[in-house]
């Protein structure tokens, strides 16, 4: 809440509180709170706000005798605690530059760079996009012998494409399943000329699908590489043996295998390794592949972000494990609706006055305010509220009457209420 507004609120609250002091002590406000909750995963943020709904006659009928005055008096006493930015800190903050409305506009649909981007999204799926407008593609198509612009994907070192597709006018990218993991692919965009040659518009970089199994290569080469010796130092040690394009660890390993003297302790003599051990490790790890934990951090992070929208409000949980199970609570599917009502009575008087609600003494706050918050189940309630002056003994009394009748079908539930709320009594 911006500070000026807050200050206004406080000021209004103080004024109205003063008026209240001079009149009757008790003010009652009925509330009907309702929440329309939606399934967590699929709805936009704004719909998740818990809304205050006006009491519909079929849902809850407030007694006409109830004095429903909404003021901020009850929260006024804590207002100084909401002073947000101390004057000193404000002075430290960077002044706001003049340009606040940037008018940034929109990103273009295309830049017509002709880029063909190829990525191996996983071991068996390629993704490709092209940065060409439909108009540009149309121009190329008109130069083609068959009126088509085609996308071709090749496995490296293979002349025949593994896939070929005609570009649709409005398509921008393509997901292409491929059979081979750990294989390098390229893509090209072009068209066939009338002379039978293929005119390449654009070529992608290579993309290699990730491996999807434990390597059959069981060669094991070990190197000693102390973590506190910098790569530069290590490189200078092996420099005279370094080849262009050579890899540092491999060169170190080769030298260590031949007994080359390093200025640190080298120990590449490892214990024996049996086929049985190898089989056991493979067994353990194969199990791990199958049991790969899907409820990983990413899923958690997703949830962390989602709940900040208020999408996962109280008691509702859509579950983030892939099988839909959850840790706490059962997901609600589809549209649903729940309503409930609570009763708040609050007011203020002289701080040294004695106040009773329904005959029970009430403890006043230091500024003379008090408030009560109850559940409000169906029923009729009469609550006498009496204040007696601490100085003169003069009394002021009020009786608040409430009635709630809920008429609803089975399809409307009740919003859960805080377990600590009690019924107002006074029936």
């Amino acid at each position: 809440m911006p500070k000026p507004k807050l200050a206004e609120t406080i000021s209004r609250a103080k004024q109205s509180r003063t008026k209240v002091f001079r009149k009757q002590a008790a003010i009652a406000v009925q509330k009907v709170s309702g929440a329309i909750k939606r399934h967590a995963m699929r709805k936009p943020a704004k719909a998740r706000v818990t809304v205050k709904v006006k009491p519909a006659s079929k849902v809850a009928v407030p007694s006409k005798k109830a004095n429903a005055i909404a003021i901020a008096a009850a929260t006024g006493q804590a207002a100084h605690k909401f002073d947000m930015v101390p004057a000193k800190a404000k002075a430290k903050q960077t002044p706001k530059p003049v340009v606040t409305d940037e008018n940034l506009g929109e990103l273009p649909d295309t830049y017509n760079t002709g880029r063909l981007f190829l990525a191996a999204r996983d071991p068996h799926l390629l993704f490709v996009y092209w940065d060409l407008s439909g108009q540009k593609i149309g121009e190329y198509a008109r130069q083609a012998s068959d009126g088509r612009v085609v996308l071709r994907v090749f496995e490296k070192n293979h002349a025949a494409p593994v896939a070929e597709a005609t570009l649709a006018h409005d398509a921008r990218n393509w997901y292409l399943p491929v059979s081979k993991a750990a294989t390098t692919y390229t893509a090209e965009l072009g068209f066939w000329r009338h002379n039978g040659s293929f005119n390449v518009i654009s070529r992608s970089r290579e993309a290699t699908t990730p491996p999807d199994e434990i390597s059959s290569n069981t060669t094991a080469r070990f190197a000693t590489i102390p973590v506190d010796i910098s790569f530069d130092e290590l490189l200078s040690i092996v420099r005279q043996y370094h080849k262009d394009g050579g890899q540092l660890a491999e060169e170190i390993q080769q030298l260590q295998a031949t007994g080359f003297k390093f200025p640190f302790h080298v120990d590449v003599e490892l214990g024996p390794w049996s086929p049985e051990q190898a089989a056991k490790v493979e067994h353990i790890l194969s199990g791990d592949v199958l049991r790969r934990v899907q409820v990983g951090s990413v899923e958690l992070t997703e949830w962390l972000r989602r709940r900040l929208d208020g999408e996962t409000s109280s008691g509702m949980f859509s579950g983030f494990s892939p099988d839909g199970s959850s840790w706490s609570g059962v997901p609600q599917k589809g549209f649903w609706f729940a309503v409930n009502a609570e009763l708040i009575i609050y007011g203020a008087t002289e701080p040294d006055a004695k106040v009773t609600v329904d005959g029970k003494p009430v403890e006043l706050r230091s500024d003379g305010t008090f408030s009560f918050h109850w559940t409000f189940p169906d029923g009729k309630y009469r609550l006498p509220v009496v204040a007696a002056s601490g100085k003169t003994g003069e009394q002021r009394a009020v009786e608040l009457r409430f009635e709630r009748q809920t008429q609803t079908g089975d399809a409307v539930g009740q919003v859960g209420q805080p377990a600590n709320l009690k019924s107002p009594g006074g029936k």
Partner: protein
Amino acid sequence: MPKGYVALVLHAHLPFVRHPEHEDFLEEDWLYEAITETYIPLIKVMEGLVRDNVDFRLTMSMTPPLCSMLLDPLLQERYVRHLTRLIALAEKEIERTKWDKPFHDLAWFYHNRFHDARATFCDGYGRNLVGAFRKFQELGKLEIITCGATHGFLPLMEHPQCVRAQILTARDHYRQCFGCDPKGIWLPECAYAPGIEDFLAEAGIRWFITDTHGVMFANPRPRYGVYAPIFAPNGVAAFGRDVESSKQVWSAEEGYPGDVDYRDFYRDIGFDLDFDYIKPHIHPDGIRTFTGIKYHRITGKSQYKEYYVRQWAMEKAASHAGNFMFNRIKQVEHLHGVLQRAPLILAPYDAELYGHWWFEGPEFINFFIRKTAFDQQTYTLTTPTEYLRNHPTQQIAQPAASSWGHKGHWEVWLEGSNAWIYQHLHVAADRMIELARQYPNPDGLTERALKQAARELLLAQSSDWAFIMKTGTTVQYAVKRTKDHLLRFNRIYDQIKAGKIDEPWLASAEWRDNIFPDVNYHYYA
């Protein structure tokens, strides 16, 4: 000699969310809640361990966006404001719950906790939590590693210069934050593709973490599986995630955080209480939000919840820590028998799991570390750097492309909802490289524009935005952030190329997106 080693790794990251143009901004709460519920509790745990002379090792990645936000005076100020509001709410709650002892006690519990957080934040560390974590690193207990500069998804970057800039910018920022070079890195989203290690070596980074299959599917086959690191051919080490220890914490069915005695996340008074009562403590637009005051325990699978009993939850955390230790002992003994050498169990988690989601998580870590120190001798805690220092001989193998996202590769960040961003990011990268090459020695204003261009590109690259688009929530915010950064980038590019830099507007962009004041755009050349 221990029979094995356990390395707990906590990945602490939040996207750079800082909106000086708004007095209140909902998404900034991500940071404030994480500070109160995760970062400060972890600091308190470490303080206690040092005080009690309990030897421990813990590894944390602290990403540059997170460190930037923790060091930002505006966000520090707003965090204090946030805490002050929470304390006021707790005071109201003490009053409201007066007649109901269990809730009243909990209201006091939160009141004290928030006060304590404010004391730690303001008085203990002068609002500098980066300095707090740094202290434990300098004591040799905590190893802090870096991440991509803005958590950019490296394998989907078309230009190697962008991968390089993400890593070198992160390294530079780490130096400023921690006064030394990072030895290790948490690759954003654990996403690795062959070739990334070349830039790690350039930055002097000695190791990174992959998901299990990143090491398991390495070539040649790693003899010791994920229970020892491998050296990539260029000498940078890769550590694979252990599945078993992850599962015990993460699994929906078996995971500790779902225990009935633990605090329920969803029952929060921000949603439970009367609207007018809670309105001053939620978003000014009246959007109900989590306040952090939660009175219920998980209780069971239904929506019926009992009130939270702190003591029971603490007992459960201790019991789970004991169970976790017991399982590590059994795991280490079994693996030691098979491998005939000491295995390393590397267990990485999102830091925000501990405390924010799993309220008792920091206490679980506390109990686990203490029990490990005093109740067993089978394994010791270590960090990856310490492990490499003591075990410098490892197998050479090429790690496999992998991430820790759903299905293990790039799908989360490259699918129908978010594939559109890459075309724009790649063109921006073309342009950034072009600018960096064209202006090796720019004048003052052009240099400012070039630096801002680099910041906007880096911020647009955050994997968080693609992730949010995929998950389908706060999508508008993620789309807007992506577009705004790209549009600011494009405008700067056009202005530099035209030789007409709009200084007042540039100043406003610098004011909004103030990450990396010293960014080195030459990394793109």
